[in-house]
């Protein structure tokens, strides 16, 4: 057997899932792919054994020097001596690596274009040589499962920058993906990689962006092109809560009342329902039975509906003479006006945030959200990325927006009409706010059921979902389990680590332990999108980043603000002092009198 590329020898007990080997110093690292030649029982009756390559991944490496007691370390540390100056041994160390077996292939299979592995059914032989494959072999091993499969280059093997790692775009959009990491772990960078990869195929994407992390795509859309060189359009929508039809409007109003904690007394509640069921309300909200002619009614911003409702109540109030009833109607009116104010405030905040962004980059254009029933193509279109900027809205409203948008678009896809929109991928940032796992939050999060539906039915209708979260243990477990591919970056919280391992099928204890030590951009990838779980270094698309939404430099901002406002403040303080002195003299004068 050739000893070329040999990096170690198998030792100890072996089984069909793993083995250990003594690793030659400096010849391999954690995450490396290795293989060893082995004989396993042949499936053919006329042969007793066949030669195979058993492939594995180094999960961990331990390093020991039995001839170096820790007491020496104590003494040399205390006396500040360098160990090589003494007689202590530094040579008698060895490294033992633990390997997770990925599968086996017949030796002749390595000559094919791609290598496909089968499960190993017989342990490797202790004393077998372990080898590191060359780049060519690794590429054959890691390349896609079907011919012409659409691939996205996610990055490279964590220990070998010369080995590219590709993920299946088809599997991501059909079977969903979760990207999980602690804050600053590199989720957004990883997501941008996926977005860029899908853009290459012109795949439509919706991004629900609570903090504006992806607005950089808009600034840099000239750098996004599909594989034919066609440009990718990026649109930023200012979302609205749209509702159509009496039932929908009423349901939304009641939800908003509850969640904004706008309570009504029993008498007020009765009055409210009286107004809601009135003929005028039905006409205003849209109810074919209430109108003179059957007509199609439009989806409108809930604020418009509420204003119309406010008008109905006001008219009623003006016409009412009974003081008690008048008071009741007045209370209902005030509550409706308060709700309008709350929604108005959020929409203003959203607009102001958008304006602020625009002041930093004049190129930002925020569009009003189109009518998703009549014009869904404005949102879902080939070669287009639609970003729903949710900044300024409360968690509930964000959830409602996501739920309404996705529900509407899903219905369109599920209708199977000829003129329905094409398949699309939904990318949901801060996913734990939209598919929460805990009891209370679950009840008040409309997006949970919607997203679950997309995940369940995604394969049939092409409504793939990519969930991004820094709080995995707050995600709904059922939803997370529906994701067939996972990209896990740095996670330090042991609860998050344990949670993720529980949901995923292919994470070993060593992989879980590695999560807390990942540098930014290092990740564990597993699931349908890759052939086997691997540790990877995700490529960074710096050209798609914008500094506008980067880390705010508030120290600098304060300094600038102070420079700008200090003279004005000083003047104001001087004026205030003058007035104070006047006031004091006036007071004295009064006393004298």
């Amino acid at each position, binding site marked *: 057997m050739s000893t070329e590329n040999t990096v170690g020898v198998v030792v100890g007990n072996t089984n069909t899932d793993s083995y250990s080997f003594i690793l030659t110093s400096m010849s391999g690292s954690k995450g490396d792919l290795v293989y060893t030649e082995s004989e396993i029982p042949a499936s053919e009756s006329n042969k007793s054994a066949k030669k195979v390559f058993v492939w594995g991944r180094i999960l961990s490496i331990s390093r020991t020097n039995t001839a170096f007691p820790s007491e020496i370390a104590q003494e*040399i540390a205390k006396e500040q001596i360098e160990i090589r100056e003494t007689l202590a041994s530094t040579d008698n160390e060895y490294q033992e690596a633990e390997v997770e077996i990925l599968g086996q292939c017949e030796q002749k299979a390595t000559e094919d274009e791609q290598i496909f592995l089968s499960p190993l059914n017989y342990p490797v032989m202790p004393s077998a040589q372990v080898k590191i494959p060359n780049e060519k072999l690794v590429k054959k091993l890691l390349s896609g499962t079907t011919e012409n499969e659409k691939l996205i280059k996610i990055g490279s093997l964590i220990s070998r920058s010369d080995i590219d790692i590709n993920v299946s775009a088809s599997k991501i959009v059909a079977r969903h993906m979760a990207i999980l990491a602690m804050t600053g772990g590199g989720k957004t960078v990883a997501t941008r990689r996926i977005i860029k990869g899908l853009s290459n195929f012109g795949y439509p994407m919706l991004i629900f962006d609570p903090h504006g992390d992806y607005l950089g795509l808009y600034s840099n859309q000239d750098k996004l092109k599909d594989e034919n060189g066609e440009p990718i359009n990026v649109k930023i929508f200012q979302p609205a809560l749209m509702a159509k039809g009496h039932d929908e409007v009423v349901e939304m109003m009641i939800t908003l009342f509850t969640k904004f904690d706008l309570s009504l007394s029993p008498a007020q509640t009765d009055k409210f329902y009286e107004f809601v069921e009135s003929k005028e309300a039905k006409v205003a909200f849209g109810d074919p039975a209430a109108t003179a002619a059957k007509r199609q009614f439009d989806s409108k911003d809930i604020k418009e509906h509420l204003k119309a409702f406010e008008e109905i109540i006001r008219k009623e109030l003006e016409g009412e003479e009974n003081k008690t009833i008048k008071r009741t109607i007045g209370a209902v009116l005030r509550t409706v006006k308060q709700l309008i104010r709350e929604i108005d405030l959020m929409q203003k905040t959203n607009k102001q945030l958008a304006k602020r962004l625009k002041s930093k980059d004049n190129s930002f254009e925020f569009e009003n959200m189109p009518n998703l029933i009549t014009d869904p193509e404005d949102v879902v279109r080939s070669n287009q990325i639609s970003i729903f900027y949710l900044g300024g809205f409360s968690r509930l409203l964000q959830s409602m927006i996501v739920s309404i948008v996705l529900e509407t678009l899903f219905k369109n896809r599920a209708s199977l009409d000829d003129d329905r929109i094409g398949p699309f991928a939904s990318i949901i940032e801060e996913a734990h706010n939209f598919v929460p796992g805990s009891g209370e939050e679950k009840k008040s999060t409309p997006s949970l059921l919607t997203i679950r539906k997309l995940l369940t039915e995604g394969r049939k209708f092409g409504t793939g979902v990519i969930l991004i979260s820094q709080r995995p243990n707050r995600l709904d477990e059922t939803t997370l389990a529906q994701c067939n591919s996972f990209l896990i970056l740095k996670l330090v919280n042991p609860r998050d680590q344990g949670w993720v391992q529980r949901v995923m099928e292919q994470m070993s204890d060593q992989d879980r332990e590695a999560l807390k030590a990942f540098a930014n951009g290092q990740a564990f990838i597993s699931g349908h999108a890759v052939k086997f779980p691997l540790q990877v270094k995700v490529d960074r698309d710096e050209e798609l980043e914008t500094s506008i939404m980067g880390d705010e430099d508030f120290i600098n901002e304060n300094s600038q603000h102070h420079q700008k406002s200090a003279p004005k403040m000083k003047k104001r303080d001087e004026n205030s002092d003058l007035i104070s002195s006047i006031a004091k003299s006036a007071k004295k004068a009064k006393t004298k009198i």
Partner: protein
Amino acid sequence: MATQKEKIKARLKKGYYSDLMVLAATQTRIQDNYMEVIINLSDKFSKILRDNGYIKKLEYKPKEFWNFKGKKTIYNIDGGQASVQIPTAAPFGLRVVNYKVKPGDRSSNREDLISDPYVVTDLFDPNSELFDQNDDDGLADDLKKMQDGTRIIFEAAAGLRTALGVLDWPKEGKVVPKKNDMIFLHGPMVNPAAGYEVQGTISGKKYPPYSLETYNFLLPHRKEAELPEHRDEEPLEKYRKFIPIYCEILKKIKTLDVPIYGCVERPGIAPFGPLTKQLMDRMINKRIIKNTDVYRNSRKPNDPDGMADILRKYQISDSAFFDYMLDVGEYIDPQEINKQEESKWPISQWDYEYWGLGIPKTFSTYLKVSENKKPIRIETMDVRESYNEDLNMVFHSSRLLKSYSFPVGLDIVDKLAKTPDWMKRNVRKNAIMLTLRKAMESGNKRAVAIARKIAVSSDNSFFNRPKGK
């Protein structure tokens, strides 16, 4: 700074004195004033030693000391026995490990290791009529001496072979040690040879000579050996035995430039030990103390004891005695000790005047490395100019492992010389299987029954001594 009394009191409270205390406690009269006697002994006698220059001092300055820049090589040699519980004679395996290190060398040649295993019976001459002997009472004891003697001679030969530069090191090939290098042996420099020469005046048995191959291995300088008989092309069986070979090895070592030191981890426990005796005799000769101070041979019950009687009465061995005398970093002026006692010499075979006294004497000292451990004994053939510096190396390398207080190089090589448990288990299992199979093949029911008993027991009485090649 603590006074001598305070120091000794603190040492006496340490756990390792409990055995002495237990022993002393069996004689109530001694127990009453044991502490007082020890403290007085330490306080007053150490003063005499210091005033007369018998105690030397080393300073612990590790940062300054460890500054060799790779220009000095330390060789560390140890032998280990494969003490496997198998149905054969006592340990049949032997391993000699040689670890070489150059402090301060930053290259890959800083360390090197040779580890050679041997099967003891393979080392003996299978053509000798003494090789295949029947089981007999006493032969088991002789075989144990054969094993131990082989280990001793191989360790000594390892020192010689290292010093002569005949070893083929894996990294650097053949290397001849320089004058400023050092060789450490784990154990005494010289052993009493008489115990390893079976003359058989009582048992009537002898064990076989070493094979020619082994003989040449043990005496790489054979062509220039001091004893003419060693230079013969076909040396007689008589000279391929322990005493003549051992004598030749040690004589040759004494002539070499490179210093060799034997470091003894567990010195003897006999009270009024040889070094104490030698020291006191020398002090008597120099008129520092009187003969009666040591050997007061009075029959009058009220007369005070001499030092010899005191040390015997209070069971104070060499290591305990010098433990009371020395502070950390101090060692006793080395004393010449003759290990070959005439009363124990096997006269019938080897003339004591030539052979016994021909084995070089050693110079021994005790060095106190740390407060919490007894001093270690260090032996060498000659007290060279470099002696103080060499002891400084022992001191500093032992201080790296304060709780062990033994040169760290020897600790490393001791670990590497041990037969690993997995090997012992496998050897035992294979040997038992071999025994069972042989018994079954013989068809002898009694043999099978005995083999089965051996398989489940740990009795290592001689039964099927494995034959050599």
